[in-house]
């Protein structure tokens, strides 16, 4: 595990000069993931903010081989690259060690790309899929996605006279990935570089399909000042709205915050939740707090159930 000083001395594999918004979390993720992965990495990217800001022809921010084809198929595209690699290694045409990483936003991962992601995971390709999850379709103008939390104001689930933003809870994609029985699934967040880079290193050291869901505050869609991205990211973890955890071969490991803060501290910093602070919407705010608490407790229960100490002794099960 490299320290920050070492990491900062490395050649930038995702360079500056891209056209992302000031305070964009997606490009922080791309830079840190590549820092951890190193130069022998091929990247496939779904259509989305990350791709459009980083590859405006004839420029590119990628100092690694990069392919983008369409919105819903980053996982399938990287499957093809990895398949060729396997073929060439078997034929004795290639012997370099290479990492295969796909990046997709929540729209391209939770929604339209879920099928190709699921297929790639099921087939067992030796790839790492990184979802940069900013909880809406930011590239097309902040429309709701399957990752958008209940109560958030988006352009296709707006707050109006009758409706109060998105009406459904978000899909739990990390758990869907865990259900694929892949060797490694994890959640990380923008604002904790050590957590993200060490999870990437750990994932890439393992063989088979890996998935990391990285929570990424979006200053445009969430409506906050650009310098707050990392702070809001860290607060997502402290309020347990986005717990940091990993599931290694089915075993959960949760990184607990020193102190669990109330959800409203996270909510009040974001324009997309502005309406929730009004007294008439207190019930919805309470509902969100209750759901957050339940998710957190469920997660801790999963950790304790899957810990080695919790495993039943063979003699007990065989009787």
């Amino acid at each position, binding site marked *: 595990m490299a320290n920050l000083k070492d990491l900062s001395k490395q050649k930038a594999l995702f360079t500056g000069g891209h056209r992302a918004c000031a305070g964009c979390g997606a490009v922080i993720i791309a830079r840190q993931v590549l820092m951890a992965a190193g*130069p*022998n990495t*091929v990247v*496939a990217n779904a259509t989305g903010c990350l*791709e*459009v800001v980083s*590859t*405006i*022809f*004839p420029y*590119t921010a*990628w*100092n*690694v*081989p*990069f*392919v*983008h*084809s*369409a919105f*819903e*198929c980053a*996982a*399938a*595209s*990287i*499957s*093809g*690259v*990895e*398949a*060729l*690699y*396997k*073929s*060439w290694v*078997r*034929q004795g045409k*290639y012997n*370099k060690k*290479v990492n295969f990483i796909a990046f997709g936003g929540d729209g391209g991962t939770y929604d339209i790309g879920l*099928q*190709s992601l*699921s*297929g*790639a995971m*099921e*087939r067992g390709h030796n790839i790492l899929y990184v979802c940069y999850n900013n909880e809406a379709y930011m590239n097309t103008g902040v429309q709701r996605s399957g990752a958008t939390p209940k109560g958030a104001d988006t352009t296709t689930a707006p707050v109006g006279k009758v409706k109060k933003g998105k009406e459904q809870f978000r899909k739990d994609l990390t758990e869907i990935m865990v259900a694929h029985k892949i060797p490694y699934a994890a959640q990380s967040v923008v604002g904790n570089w050590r957590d993200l880079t060490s999870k990437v290193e750990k994932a890439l050291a393992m063989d088979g399909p890996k998935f990391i869901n990285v929570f990424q505050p979006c200053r445009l869609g969430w409506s906050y000042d650009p310098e707050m991205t990392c702070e809001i990211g860290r607060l997502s973890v402290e309020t347990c709205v986005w717990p940091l955890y990993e599931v290694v071969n089915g075993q959960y490991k949760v990184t607990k915050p020193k102190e669990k803060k109330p959800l409203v501290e996270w909510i009040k910093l974001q324009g997309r939740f502005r309406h929730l602070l009004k007294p008439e919407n207190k019930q919805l705010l309470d509902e969100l707090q209750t759901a957050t608490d339940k998710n957190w407790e469920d997660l801790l229960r999963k950790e304790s159930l899957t810990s080695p100490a919790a495993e039943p002794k063979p003699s007990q099960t065989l009787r």
Partner: protein
Amino acid sequence: MANSNIVARTGNEAMAEAMRQINPDVVAAYPITPATEVVQIFAGYVADGLVDTEFVPVESEHSAMSACIGSSSAGGRTMTGTSSQGLALMAEMLYIAAGLRLPIIMADVNRALSSPINIHCDHSDTMMVRDSGWIQIFSENCQEAYDNMLQAVRIAEKARLPVMVTTDGFIISHGMERLEILSDADAKSFVGAYKPENYLLNFEKLITVGALDLQDYYFEHRRQLAEAMKTSKQVILDVAKEFGTKFGRTYGLFEQYKMDGAEIAIVAMGSTAGTAKVVIDGLRSKGLKAGLIKPRVFRPFPKEELADSLKGLKAVAVMDRSDAMNAQEGPLAVEVKAALFDASASSGANKTVLDYIYGLGGREIKPEDIEHVYNDLSEAAKGKAKQKVTYLGVRE
């Protein structure tokens, strides 16, 4: 003449056999009737270790083409097979494969598109993606399907365009015929080794594939694609010439059957051309000067050459095995007429062109149907006007 073996094979077996001899680096595919057998048989070759291919049995045709795009841009010789709804699901990615100039090769077994759902042959699927930037080569029988597959590899890699080789669903795909197969060594030496110029797995020369093109570059890149399609015509002819010299079976952009001295002719693609040949033999013995043009290459469309071959005729019928739903006529007729229009502007010739839309969803096309077309043409050649578009064999 090279050594060859004579075997009995269906169209799907012939295509799978060609794929085995090509031995691509990656095949990514999803099963679909009637193309299923192509990759099913090929999966058997993979299971038996007869090929070096990494087979990716994806969860959809969209992912099949996406994986092919990944593999091809990474530098691998890459193939797939599909049909109908599968081709439709791939459509988005077909445009991307062509736009990225990736030499992916596809076995495409022609089948009707939904709805209503139908599993039998027509050309609606291939026609739906005719503007995607893929070279489209039609086969009349198993032999052509096999020969076209081998040639497609060379064409794709030289023209830097993806190529689909089509057969008619069930008629060719499941029909068993005599097939002359090349020796593995001859096939291997003909297709040669693939040496991509720029590819993802080359860390010495980093590339970004699939960048965002805005107003300042997109138009130029599409223009280059259009030019590549134009110049691919010569590539197709060169590859066919080499194939003919080496193996004795000659191919061009289209085949002319009994066109010497012909006064009337039909233009038909795929298996129907074979049926038409039988009809022509009969008509010729009765003294009717009938001929056939069988386009082998629909994309790029051999406009000038085809117009030239039709110029001496009194009347022409186009057999369209799909409808363009354009309130005009079938797609092949539109292309043929456009070619003739441009040619007539210089020659001053004006010709009657009739379009027959036929055989949708596997509806049989019989010799007597084709004879009927020639009878219409004879009338039209005498100046007796016929309706321009006829739905042949439909109950109305």
